[in-house]
């Protein structure tokens, strides 16, 4: 069990973690899961790119003659199991890891995957790329939380709007989308394979998780979704073309992102109108402002409920600019 929650009953720990940050709740939920029972599935996406799906965030895997590149590394306890799946695709060394954001369901496996990914061909540990805010947050532990080991830190952070490199015969472009899910979100575009890995900026199975405590915002999230739509190009009649790997959930393309963007934009418009009229959060909630989307994206249990989403939207849009 994760030491951060040891000594607490699950219910109390869950409540505390949720109060501190909804996203930390995922740690607890996962800590109650036996990694041995977790099923991981590797699915081909397009070109050189695959996705490893299971508990925790999706892991994007790109392979070729130069070795292996990962986008995110999942939960730490799953790293050996994830690595076994990756080894079915390639014996090459892991040379690049990109973290789409700071949360541990996407960065938890950094250190272990870097270690397991070393082979005789390795020229050192992999480069771990992330937007500089990810490094800042990983090197500064949250109050009461243990320090994250240095081996897990990004060692190739960037602070400009984008970073690019060439690997396995294709250009890889990493775009920073500010103040969206967090303040350190990256989109990773595999230009030849025509695949975009989005991290938790896009989670089609739930309302977007706006981590206000870590610099997220509703407008930044909408801007990021519009950026995804800018980057992606559909094939005939708005289908296929650039494939999109979300932070969690099934494979998608631009049309799926459009539906998601539309949802959040409509909800923003409603909240803005009601906030402008001076309505309180409770008054807004009483109108059931997301009733039309709740059956698709909402949840009454789990670590990101509809109620938490509404709180985040209200707080984000109420903040003085």
């Amino acid at each position, binding site marked *: 069990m994760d030491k951060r929650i040891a000594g607490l009953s699950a219910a109390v720990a869950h409540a505390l973690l949720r109060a501190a940050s909804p996203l930390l709740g995922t740690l607890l939920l996962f800590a109650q899961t036996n990694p041995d029972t977790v099923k991981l*599935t590797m*699915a081909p996406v397009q070109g050189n790119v695959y*996705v490893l*799906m299971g508990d925790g965030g999706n892991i994007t895997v790109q392979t070729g003659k130069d070795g292996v590149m990962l986008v995110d590394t999942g939960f730490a306890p799953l790293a050996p199991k994830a690595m076994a799946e990756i080894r079915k695709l390639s014996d090459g060394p892991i040379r690049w890891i990109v973290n789409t954001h700071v949360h541990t369901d996407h960065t938890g496996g950094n250190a272990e995957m870097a270690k397991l990914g070393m082979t005789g061909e390795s020229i050192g540990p992999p480069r771990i790329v992330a937007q500089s805010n990810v490094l800042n947050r990983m090197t500064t532990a949250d109050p009461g939380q243990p320090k994250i080991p240095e081996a897990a830190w990004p060692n190739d952070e960037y602070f400009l709007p984008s970073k690019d490199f060439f690997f396995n015969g294709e250009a890889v472009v990493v775009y920073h989308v500010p103040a969206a899910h967090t303040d350190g979100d990256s989109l990773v575009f595999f230009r030849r394979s025509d695949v975009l890995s989005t991290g938790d900026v896009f989670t089609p199975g739930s309302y977007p998780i706006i981590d206000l405590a870590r610099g997220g915002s509703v407008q930044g999230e*909408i*801007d990021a979704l*519009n950026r995804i*739509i800018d980057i992606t190009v*559909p094939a*005939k*009649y*708005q*289908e*296929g073309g650039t*494939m999109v790997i979300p932070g969690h*959930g*099934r*494979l*998608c*393309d*631009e*049309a*799926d992102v*459009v*539906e998601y*963007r*539309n949802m959040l*934009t*409509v909800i923003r*418009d*409603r909240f803005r*109108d009601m906030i402008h009229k001076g309505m309180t959060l409770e008054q807004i909630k009483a*109108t059931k*402002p997301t*009733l*039309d*989307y*709740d*059956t*698709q994206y909402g949840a009454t249990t789990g670590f990101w409920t509809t109620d938490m989403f509404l709180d985040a939207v209200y707080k984000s849009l109420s903040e003085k600019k």
Partner: protein
Amino acid sequence: MVSLPVFAQVDFTGEWAPLYHEDGPERLPGPELGDYTELPINAAARMAGDTYDADRISVVPEYQCRPHGGDYSMRGLGNLRVWRDIDQASEKLIAFHTHMLAWDSERTIWMDGRPHPPDYAPHTWQGFSTGVWDGNMLTITTTHLKTNYMRRNGIPRSDKAVFTEHWTRHGDYLTVVTVIEDPVYLTEPLVRSDNWYVDPGQNIGIFGCEYAPEVPRPEGTVPNHLVGQNPFLHEFANWYGLPYEATRGGAETLYPEYQKKIANEYHPPDHCERYCKCTSLFDCNVTSK
């Protein structure tokens, strides 16, 4: 005893032209805003329809060439071509294929017993279809549909929906009973039927579509009516003399008992100015008010 492979009991291949009946107004000029009749929708779908702004199909570029879903194709401009794949070695039917006029939509109906894809597989406009024979009736199950419309006035159909069809051929006529089950937006299955007739001379042309900005607008604009501020919702009820509640959809409104319930509130206009007698593409005359 000699075992024989299961052959297709009925051949659906060929060119089929759609027949329009009471569904003409919805399929040809398109549904009226606020017309949710015949739909067993829940409150979520109703709110989606109420806040939908039809400008969206123009202002959102990605909607300009968005095709019908595999389910709605059967209700659209439904000129239909059907062909099939036969495995030459075994003479077994492998698949039917359909081509629809609207957006050149094509789908494959697998008849070889293959399973549907896993949950994580991408969803498509036409979905993933498999078929089985039930006597002379072909029953098709489609999953993995993308989110789309159940009616083109903002009533959505989710990507969790399962679409079932029952194809029956009567000589030169084809009847397809369709069933949409959608846990997100329906409280009961939506059951409808459509008819086609054989049209050997039919020549389906290229549909073609290229999206382009049509009006200046800030990037990311998504037209929508704020809750309670859509001025068009009562038009349909007023034009046809229906009580407003009867236009709001819901399972109750589908059953004959509901006609009795609203009998005293239904006041059809003396002179119909909308699609009261619309049965084909050419007689859907509208007199502007």
